[in-house]
């Protein structure tokens, strides 16, 4: 990923992408829109580019827009017949079938109550119908998905979630040196952490929230000071 820091505004033509599309196929991510043969930004923020041909706008946002394949954290709100209603921070409630859990059958329902946290995958995301979640992979195994027990849950911007999940992000590695912990980061701007004691868990949450305003470049510096935040 190149550290491209050109800021674009909604409605602006993005000629950089148009040039790239002249001789190869280009993937337009969120925040970029095609109008005939022009590419126009629909969100404000830095234009990001990933080799070889992916472009998107990394705008600041707190409202999650569901996209197929995303891994998110949801809160179970209610049971509606065969479905559970789950709040994932999007405009519409998501739903998850009681059969979308490992080893669940009609007889053997998963034990979910309102208020439970789920780490789930978005199976279906469409503007016209409510998003659908699953807690199993295509082999029927839950893998890393499922209910999150105990721990501490907090909300943040979508950017922070994405920041932590970059492959080269130093933040989680820096925290590992401080204490053993378990974390679930949803790309819907929700984070769940768990450490051995309450005190450590809260310190961890504070350390992560301190990264809220960090950009790609400042993050290294902040990671150096995380020790102080965790102790406080």
């Amino acid at each position: 990923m190149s550290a491209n820091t050109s800021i674009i505004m909604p409605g602006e033509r993005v000629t950089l992408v148009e040039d790239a599309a002249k001789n190869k196929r280009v993937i337009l991510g969120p925040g970029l829109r095609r109008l005939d043969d022009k590419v126009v930004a629909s969100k404000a923020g830095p234009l990001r580019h990933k080799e070889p041909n992916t472009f998107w706008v990394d705008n600041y946002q707190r409202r999650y827009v569901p996209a197929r394949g995303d891994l998110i954290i949801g809160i179970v709100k209610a049971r509606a017949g065969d479905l559970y209603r789950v709040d994932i921070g999007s405009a519409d409630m998501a739903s998850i079938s009681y059969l979308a859990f490992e080893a669940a059958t009609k007889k053997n329902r998963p034990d979910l109550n309102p208020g439970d946290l789920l780490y789930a995958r978005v199976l279906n995301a469409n503007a016209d119908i409510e998003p659908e979640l699953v807690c199993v992979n295509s082999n029927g195994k839950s893998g890393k998905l499922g209910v999150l027990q105990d721990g501490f849950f907090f909300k943040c911007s979508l950017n922070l979630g994405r920041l932590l999940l970059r492959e080269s992000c130093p933040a989680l590695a820096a925290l590992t040196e401080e204490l053993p912990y378990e974390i679930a980061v949803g790309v819907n701007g929700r984070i769940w952490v768990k450490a051995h004691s309450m005190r450590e868990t809260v310190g961890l949450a504070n350390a992560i929230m301190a990264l809220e305003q960090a950009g790609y470049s400042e993050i290294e510096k902040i990671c150096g000071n995380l020790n102080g935040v965790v102790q406080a």
Partner: protein
Amino acid sequence: MPSKTKPRLSRGLLDMKFMQRTKVKVAKEDDDEQSRALYSNELNQKMLNSNSNYIIEPSYTICAGLIDGRLSFRGMNPELERLMELEQAEKQGNTRPEQPKEVNDQEMADAYYANQAPAVCKTMNKKFATKNEFNKRKSNNGNPKWQKKGQFKKPRADDDED
């Protein structure tokens, strides 16, 4: 319009029992034609056969190549760490060079033909051989059981006299 001139099957015929599958097919064709007529003035030639260099991908996860967000460090959740290790191993397994062979291909083929293949070949050959060939092969083997039985020979007169 070609549909006007196209001969159509009568309704009475389509209602017959043996025409049920054709009936479904005809209904589908009619539907397709209707929907095409409905949208024909909205679709233009450019929409029908343009190929664009742009692919729309609405997910940040895929665009930015984000990792799975469920992680555990320093033995907090051993089960999860095992999964993470497996995933890591799989990722590296794709780039690892192939292991060297202990037996090379030539030796393998030689050993195969020396042991197995000829036997199978023979069995299959036997299946397709004619009866004549079969008898011939047996006689070549020199098996006395399959040789032509000698006819009874009348004893000579002088043999008896001794």
